[in-house]
């Protein structure tokens, strides 16, 4: 026991002049004053702890909220949306009585400080969000961004992050089916570790985070609470790194995937027996978040006895218990007569479960410690009524100059030999090279429902063994495009993910996003953010794919240097029969290759401009969302009706990158003919959006062409699947063996 008196509500009222460490906890002066105003007195230490974490950028979205509203305001009409923004994760209807929940989140800052645990607990957190909706998690995806591939620190961060994702996800039994890996010097001190997860449930099993029904018990279950991760949300995720400050490693949580696996099984068993009224996972801001959100979303108040929280470290203060971000914990609200059964199930799975409080008929959240009341707040003021900032934003002064530095004017290859060399350079560059060194460290097969996994255009999971109903997910986000034009860059991220889902034969349904940006206190960054959100909201509206939820990660910058604005967009799709899916790999020699869409001279932000000229300037490719929609319809119809045997979307690296990937995966070459009206360079390297390459069996040629013609999609025959070279007629022929060596050798060589 400490000798100082317990800082109870009574004590706080009696000692108004006590100085509290609000600044150390990350609160601004006016924010602290607002807390005092809400309470009508100074907060207790415990209350201050709660407000400081819940009002942090990470938890309150105080800088981003005013912009994020557009996702709701511009949301397209969609019958598929069952649960929207604001819950642990959004839920969409995929038919046959199934609902799918999915979300992408960031764990960027912790993963830089401690790559293995940062990335591991990122997976853990997103998976608990999925369970909290009532769903069984069925897959994860990991969009990653690292600094320059050859930078020494990348060798520290990348292997740790990959091992952490694998170590945690593999142990949970979740197939890792997608994501991306991108290298760029702008992420040197701020790698992006985003994690996405998908869960499946029946409609009637959807659960929400709310505590209703006076007398219902609040049960904390899972791992014991320790001193790890204290201030993770407020200190780590809501500030820029600064060399002058002490190491933040203790603010990173440590994961135990075995405990999480037990938590999944035990939670799902409790759901099956209908034992749970409301549920919330403990992630950022730990118990502060879980209690205040459960209470504020329900009909009553809540009373919690903090002494009952099982501890890993008995010396923790109540403030620390409230702020701890120890992993693998959940909070359930259970009717009194069902508590025994709930505890029995936890016991079966060797999961510690403790009743720590109950729902009251008042409207206050009250927390007790050693008999004294240390928290007495309106939970809504903690969870939902945090500060909202209208941060100033302005188009940066350098934007015009950047856009004027036109990549289309860069010197192009003049001979066939030079063209060939640049193709090799491209497919062997770190960003375009095979990522199998990374993805082979993830289990793709577990659960036995994986239809497609990376490097396919989207990951695909069968969700019903009888009907073969499936879902697909793709994530994309090109930071180079977004840097050149955040509005269209965000739209291109959506367009690419949407296209990737359709390329595999699935119908795009809904969107989740993870918006990674620099400091919101910099007006230029704030402008990038505002533009990206506006662009994404407009595009979602036009494509009819609502945003169901997501995450914002700000302060991704070191000193003055912010990362490229990186909106990562995940699109979820549905496919009625997974047997109809379209893979990337060429299947059979003799099949005809068709290019769908229009190819223009568009090299701004392109992989070619980066690899060959180390250049970033000009404008990103044009966005034509109506064209994207038409292309998607054609790809889905062609897949359903068996008109195409393989398909690959065209994005970074252009046509040649796509053809090389399809050829290497299928072990079959291609003969390509440069179409009339295009030069070989533009044909191979342009990154015009709204395009895909498909392989059509000869028997389907007429039908396929008729369909494209009737619907008005430009279609160009560009060659045939053939041989063991990629042969661009009249230019060069590259043996598959050489392409394979180049494409597959880069990443292992860099990381060995």
């Amino acid at each position: 026991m400490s000798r100082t008196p317990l800082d109870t509500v009574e004590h706080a009222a009696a000692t108004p002049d006590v100085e509290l460490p609000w600044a150390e906890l990350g609160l601004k002066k006016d924010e602290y004053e607002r807390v005092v105003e809400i309470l009508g007195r100074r907060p207790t230490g415990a209350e201050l702890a709660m407000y400081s974490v819940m009002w942090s950028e990470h938890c309150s979205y105080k800088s981003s909220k005013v912009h994020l509203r557009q996702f709701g305001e511009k949301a397209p009409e969609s019958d598929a949306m069952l649960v929207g923004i604001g819950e642990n994760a959004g839920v969409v209807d995929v038919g046959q009585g199934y609902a799918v929940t999915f979300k992408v989140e960031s764990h960027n800052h912790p993963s830089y400080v401690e790559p293995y645990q940062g990335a591991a607990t990122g997976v853990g957190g997103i998976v608990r969000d999925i369970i909290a909706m009532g769903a069984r998690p069925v897959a994860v995806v990991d969009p990653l961004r690292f600094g320059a591939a050859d930078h020494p620190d990348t060798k520290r961060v990348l292997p740790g992050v990959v091992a952490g994702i694998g170590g945690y996800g593999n142990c949970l039994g979740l197939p890792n089916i997608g994501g991306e890996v991108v290298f760029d010097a702008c992420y040197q001190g701020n790698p992006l570790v985003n994690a996405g997860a998908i869960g499946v449930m029946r409609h009637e099993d959807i659960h929400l985070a709310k505590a209703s029904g006076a007398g219902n018990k609040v049960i904390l279950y899972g791992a014991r609470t320790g001193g790890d991760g204290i201030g993770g949300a407020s200190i780590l995720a809501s500030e820029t790194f600064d060399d002058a400050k002490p190491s933040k490693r203790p603010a990173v949580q440590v994961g135990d995937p075995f405990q999480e696996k037990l938590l999944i099984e035990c939670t799902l068993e409790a759901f099956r027996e209908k034992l749970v009224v409301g549920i919330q996972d403990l992630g950022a801001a730990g118990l502060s978040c879980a209690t205040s959100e459960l209470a504020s979303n329900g009909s009553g108040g809540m009373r919690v006895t903090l002494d009952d929280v099982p501890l890993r470290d008995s010396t923790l203060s109540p403030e620390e218990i409230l702020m701890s971000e120890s992993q693998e914990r959940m909070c359930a609200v259970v009717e009194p007569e069902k508590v025994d059964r709930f505890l029995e199930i936890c016991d079966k799975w060797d999961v510690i479960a403790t009743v720590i409080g109950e729902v009251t008929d008042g409207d206050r959240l009250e927390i007790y410690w050693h008999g004294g009341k240390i928290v007495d707040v309106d939970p809504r003021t903690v969870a939902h009524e945090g500060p909202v900032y209208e941060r100033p934003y302005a188009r940066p002064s350098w934007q015009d100059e950047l856009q004027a530095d036109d990549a289309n004017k860069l010197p192009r290859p003049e001979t066939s030999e030079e063209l060939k060399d640049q193709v090799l350079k491209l497919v062997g560059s770190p960003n375009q090279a095979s990522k199998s060194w990374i993805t082979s460290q993830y289990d793709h097969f577990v659960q036995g429902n994986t239809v497609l996994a990376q490097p396919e255009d989207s990951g695909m999971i069968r969700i019903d063994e009888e009907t073969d109903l499936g879902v697909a997910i793709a994530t994309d986000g090109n930071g180079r495009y977004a840097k050149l034009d955040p509005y269209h860059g965000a739209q291109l991220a959506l367009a690419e993910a949407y296209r990737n889902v359709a390329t595999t034969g699935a119908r795009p349904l809904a969107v989740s996003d993870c918006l990674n940006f620099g400091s919101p206190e910099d007006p230029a960054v704030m402008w990038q953010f505002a533009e990206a959100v506006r662009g994404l909201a407009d595009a979602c509206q036009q494509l009819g794919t609502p945003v169901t939820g997501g995450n914002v990660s700000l302060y991704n910058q070191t000193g003055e240097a912010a990362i490229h604005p990186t909106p990562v967009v995940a699109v979820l799709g549905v496919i009625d029969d997974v047997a109809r899916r379209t893979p990337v790999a060429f299947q059979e020699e003799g099949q005809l290759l068709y290019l769908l869409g229009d190819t223009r001279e568009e090299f701004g932000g392109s992989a070619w401009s980066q690899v060959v000229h180390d250049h970033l300037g000009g404008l990103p490719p044009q966005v034509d969302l109506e064209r994207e929609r038409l292309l998607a319809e054609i790809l889905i119809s062609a897949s359903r009706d068996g008109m195409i045997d393989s398909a690959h979307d065209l994005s970074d690296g252009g046509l040649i990158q796509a053809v090389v990937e399809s050829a290497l995966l299928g072990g079959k070459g291609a003969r390509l003919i440069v179409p009339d009206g295009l030069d070989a360079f533009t044909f191979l390297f342009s990154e015009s959006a709204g395009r895909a390459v498909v392989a059509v069996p000869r028997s389907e040629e007429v039908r396929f062409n008729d369909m494209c013609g009737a619907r008005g999609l430009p279609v160009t025959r560009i060659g045939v699947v053939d041989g063991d070279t990629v042969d661009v007629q009249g230019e060069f022929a590259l043996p598959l063996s050489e392409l394979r060596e180049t494409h597959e050798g880069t990443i292992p060589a860099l990381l060995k």
Partner: protein
Amino acid sequence: MTARIGVVTFPGSLDDRDTQRAIRVAGAEPVALWHKDKDLKQVDAVVLCGGFSYGDYLRAGAIARFSPVMEPLLEQAKAGLPVLGICNGFQILTEAHLLPGTMLRNNHLHFICRDQKLRVENAETAWTTDYAAGQEIHIPLKNNDGQYVADERTLDELEAEGRVAFRYVDFNPNGSQRDIAGVSNEAGNVVGLMPHPEHAVEPLIGTGRTDGLPFFTSILKKLVNA
């Protein structure tokens, strides 16, 4: 009459439902066994599936080996009950000394997931009669601790007695001695291997091959014809 094949779920087991599915696809009846069960519910055979039992803390399979269900399993396996250990299940069987040798961490120190080529060296065990000896098959492999090791004498014995049931072909993914992917006991009723046949039973799923199905049809035929 079909055969009833038990699949044990330990805390941390991952492929239990997949294994049950594979048993169903082969035409047998899967029976869920819980690690705290004290009897085997009169099943005709048992599969110990993959995963990270007890988080693989301490050592892969080392804690699961002491679960209550292992007592009747050990007793009946010694009396001839067919038992298949896949990945973590193989590790548990070596920890329980039903199979010789042990598994170390992969020699490259990374988890590895790939479509692995194997050769069936022994097509006469309870779980391999639907293969031909020498047949090459592709089965997914995914593990962190898959490096099979044993002392030279044990390895020589295994070779001499035809108890090396499977060998890696073209690429040794984990540094296993003599490319060993799976072994059997003397009687041939207990088999363990690192790759995952239960992930290769449906043409649409995983690698698109069904090379793992004969494990389950082999045992079904044996049990039904018995």
